[in-house]
């Protein structure tokens, strides 16, 4: 059995607003990423994807607060650790995080090599600058980045190059898990492809053991990761391999999400995009029953009574719905039939 790099058990975190209201942004999320696997997290904006990424690092600062659950990175439980210890011992070494606007973090008055020196000197006491330079140069060459970048200022680099530089810096200390939160959403398609290529390269070359990739662009996610997890209102609603999730989703929400995919390929124009009506629930007062009930096409009275638990489908997939898998599939087939006749 593969070695679990990151294991999360029933992690819950909340935001506390300045009026002392609690917003339950991540609610009892459990996940496991094995060595050599990558996990994608999909969902609408505001569903808690980015908060989950922040929570996974174990590094909480207000307004984000930890409530319950465990985070185990490479066999080590980090959930009770002090923020300062986490910064010194975990961040960068065990788990690395690339935020959405990572390239804006580069100070324009310093050269790229200075950021690399900062990172290494913070974690290793006795290294001289020559060694650091050689190490950085070697890393950049392996990743296909020109070593001249090291001597440049951030303003001299293009957006895509800056983003790739930041990714290279984040894997300097060979972390076990890399969390990439929309690393390519501000880039054009060609730079995006370069970033993705580099992330794949990192996995193949063994710089990182596993990766968590967060985005709402489903075609991208399908091409990057092995498994996809769909989140809705702070909860996991479905989990499966990326092929299963894109072509054969079970949960009505995932079905709606996959129906909104747009790719420039043959047959797209015949497909009718399905949109999910309504807006996500307010997480200050999450509904007592199923959180998706308000927007669901198949809603039943019993949906609104008690909260719905994750249940297992065939071949290890999990989904959160009270309607059995077979019935849902039947309903989808019927819908497709109706659409065909409509055309």
């Amino acid at each position, binding site marked *: 059995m593969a070695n679990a790099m990151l294991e999360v058990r029933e992690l819950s975190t909340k935001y506390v607003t300045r009026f002392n209201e609690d917003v339950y942004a991540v609610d009892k999320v459990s996940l496991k990423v094995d060595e050599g696997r990558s996990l994608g997290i999909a969902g609408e904006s505001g569903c808690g994807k980015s908060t989950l990424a922040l929570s996974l690092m174990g590094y909480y600062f207000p307004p984000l607060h930890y409530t319950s659950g465990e985070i185990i990175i490479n066999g080590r439980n980090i959930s009770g650790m002090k923020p300062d210890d986490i910064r010194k011992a975990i961040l960068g070494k065990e788990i690395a995080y690339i935020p959405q606007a990572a390239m804006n973090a580069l100070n324009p008055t310093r050269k790229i090599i200075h950021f690399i020196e900062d990172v290494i000197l913070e974690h290793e006491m006795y290294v001289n600058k020559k060694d650091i330079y050689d190490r950085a140069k070697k890393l950049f060459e392996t990743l296909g980045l020109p070593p001249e970048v090291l001597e440049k200022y951030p303003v001299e680099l293009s957006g895509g190059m800056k983003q790739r530089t930041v990714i290279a810096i984040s894997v300097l200390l060979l972390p076990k898990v890399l969390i990439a939160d929309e690393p390519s959403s501000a880039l054009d398609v060609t730079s995006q492809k370069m970033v993705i290529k580099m992330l794949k390269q990192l996995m193949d070359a063994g710089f990182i053991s596993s990766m968590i990739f967060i985005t709402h662009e489903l075609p991208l996610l399908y091409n990057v990761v092995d498994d996809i997890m769909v989140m809705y209102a702070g909860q996991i609603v479905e989990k499966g391999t990326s092929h299963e999730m894109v072509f054969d989703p079970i949960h009505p929400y995932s079905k709606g999400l996959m*129906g909104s995919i747009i790719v420039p390929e043959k047959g797209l*124009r015949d497909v009718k995009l399905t949109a999910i009506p309504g807006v996500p629930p307010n997480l200050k007062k999450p509904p007592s029953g199923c959180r998706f009930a308000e927007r669901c096409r198949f809603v039943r009275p019993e949906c609104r009574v008690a909260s719905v638990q994750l249940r297992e489908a065939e071949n290890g997939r999990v989904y959160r719905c009270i309607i059995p898998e077979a019935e849902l599939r039947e309903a989808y087939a019927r819908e497709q039939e109706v659409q065909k006749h409509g055309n």
Partner: protein
Amino acid sequence: MAIEKKLYLSAKGITKTFGFGRQKTVAVDNVDLDLYEGEVVSIVGESGSGKTTLSKVLLGLMNQTSGDVYFQGLKRDISTQARKQEYWKNIQAIFQDPFSSYNIFNKIDSVLLDCINMRGGKFYPREKKIEMMTEACSFVNLKFEELTNKYPFELSGGQMQRLMIARIFLLQPKILLADEPTSMIDACSRATILDELMHLRKEIGMTIIFITHDIGLAYYVSDNVYIMEKGKFVEGGSADEVILTPRHPYTKRLINDVPKIYEEWDLTTV
């Protein structure tokens, strides 16, 4: 022979430059564009290719350096404010950022009332105005009763963008220019907005210019697609032709670099 279509908007040799001397930048370079009645035309390009500058010239928000814009066969005249307003009755736009498209001091009712007034409905009875507003809101699946006495910033980005479409429904311009209407919205609400734009086309037969960087989206919505690179149109034609059998290397690269689902996405060619 098919029914002859009416030429609505035609741009001839539009050029727009910024700066002088060594700092001179050519943002739009000798662009020709013909737009017929009821068509949906997409202009696709990466950031910096000049698509927003072109859209501003077409809208009359910016004067072109050279070239002419013809509207319904006549040369466009936007020399005075009154003439500009006359022109804007025929062409309206939806912009990228819904959050900065509204006057934050005006309530939603007054946003919609302004549109009715502009279409010459100023002296309609109150009931009729409310009926029109309700119809416009239900067109985009919003409930007017829930929106009265609210300010635009109380809505989500997707709802704001849909309200923008409701405005267009009330204004009924001949041409709608949509400048990246879905780029600030997540993939799920994007489907809703696209559906409503297409609905607009089907119901009132509106002519739409769609400006986007997402080639898949352009393929989904449009009849004709133009690919723009560095201020020039490098390729143009019907959507199927351009997307499925691209000829220009730039178009080929764009299509190649978009993540795919049914075909394999080739990562080696970067």
